[in-house]
């Protein structure tokens, strides 16, 4: 892919990124940070490509270390975000007895 096409995609992605999270409430700051964190774990794809092209044992070792780190970022990031969000979900379902339930909610 040529340089201008990549530049175009990069610039468009900047705008999409700004737009998508422009009005997030502070309640969700932590899960959103964690979710974005998980997404950049996709560097795993790059680490796999580098490891797959490695001929020298040293290069392979370093590349495999990158694969381990990237996988930890990717898998751990999504799992931890899901756990956090599960907590948000639970509070709607499990209203404790004794509290006056209000209709709707946010």
């Amino acid at each position, binding site marked *: 892919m040529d340089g201008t096409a*990549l530049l175009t995609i990069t610039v468009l992605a900047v705008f999409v990124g700004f737009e998508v999270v422009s009005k997030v409430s502070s309640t969700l700051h932590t899960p959103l940070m964690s979710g*974005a964190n998980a997404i950049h774990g996709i560097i795993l794809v790059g680490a796999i490509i580098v490891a797959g092209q490695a001929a020298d044992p040293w290069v392979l070792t370093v590349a495999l270390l990158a694969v381990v780190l990237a996988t930890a970022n990717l898998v751990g990031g999504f799992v931890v975000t899901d756990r956090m969000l599960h907590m948000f979900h639970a509070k709607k379902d499990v209203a404790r007895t004794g509290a006056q339930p209000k209709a709707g909610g946010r």
Partner: protein
Amino acid sequence: MSLLDPVWTSLLYLAAAVCFILALRGLSSPRTARRGNLVGALGALIAVVTVFLSARLENIPWILAAIVVGSAVAAPVARRVKMTQMPQLVALFNGVGGGAAALVALLELGHAENAWVRVAIVFTLLVGAVSFAGSGVTFAKLQELMTTRPVVFPGLPVVMAVVLVAAVAAGVAVVLSGSLPLAVLLLVLGLAAGILLVLPVGGADVPIVISLLNAFTGLAVAASGLVLGNVLLVVAGTLVGASGTILTRAMAAAMGRSVAGILFGAFRGGSTAGSTAVSQRPVRSSSAEDVAVLLGYAQRVIIVPGYGLAVAQGQHTAAELAQALEARGIEVDFAIHPVAGRMPGHMNVLLAEANVPYESLKEMGEINPEFKTTDVALVVGANDVVNPAAKTSSGSPIYGMPILEVAEARQVVFLKRSMRPGFAGIENDLLYEPQTSLLFGDAKDSLAQVLGAVKAL
């Protein structure tokens, strides 16, 4: 040997990119957040399967083994970590992502065909290393392996400047020569810069720096995408870089701080002076029975939960106390500061885990005008978020941070373990006010005693 036609490869990467956009979009609203996260994970799965099917790869058994190792280490940790330790785990995962990006860039140096590719490599190396080392320091601070207060030493600005100049020089040299030893030197300088950048950041500012480093890692991933000519990495990394930047600014705004002030405020000196010494001024301490009487005969009570409550796992007891008071006809609410806990929104997560009813959780803007008409504000394990110094003392590190105005309540009761200052490392003058009384002890034990005494009234 590739199994997939390049067109299909591109289309599958596009699908993964769309999944990531939908994931971020979903995560910005409570109703769609969990689904959004799962869509993101699906996108990642599509991308990883695609790379195996499309690229010409050697060493596949080794790569699969490394993936298994990475998952086997991360998944159980992510599953078992206590909710109170969530922020440092997020920092850790961010750091390893940055480290992976830096290593990928280092290895690609040998394949770089022209100077522009080497520019992208240098950028990824430097930013990835800063993110890795910086995240390591934030992890150590949040895990309390080191002090949570700003660490500044004389000459820090000079050392920082020297490291940065050396890094720029090494970067230029790498672009011109493509030398691997110089690239390794650049990596080391990046690590040093990351450590020096985060050391002077303290207290409640640490989470904001995690968000900033998160955005950095995104940019490093985007740059590595340019190096590898991989559109998905460019899009995903740029998305995280851009959304992380917005998020960092939103978090800083929620605390009345500027990002530059957070990073470089400590350099100016003075503002980080916060006291380590405990003041000798007298405080009024009371017994659980006293507190129970105060609460039991009030008309309106606001409970202000903080990190101390969460650490003591006292959420359930707090909820029970609220119910016992409501049974006596007392109006009870929980006041949630946006940065209560260790991160914005962290306290909501912690209380939700304890099934505190959502209707009782009031946000700062909503509850602040109500303190004036409140008989008792019960502060459980919180300190910085109610410290009037944020409004009155312009030299304080938390000056400008919006606070819960508990000082307006007729009576204030602090449940505290000790007189030790809070996360920001500064003293709270409210503790010495005449309307304030203190009940010392573990938050859960104290709450249980107060609960017992309320029931016995």
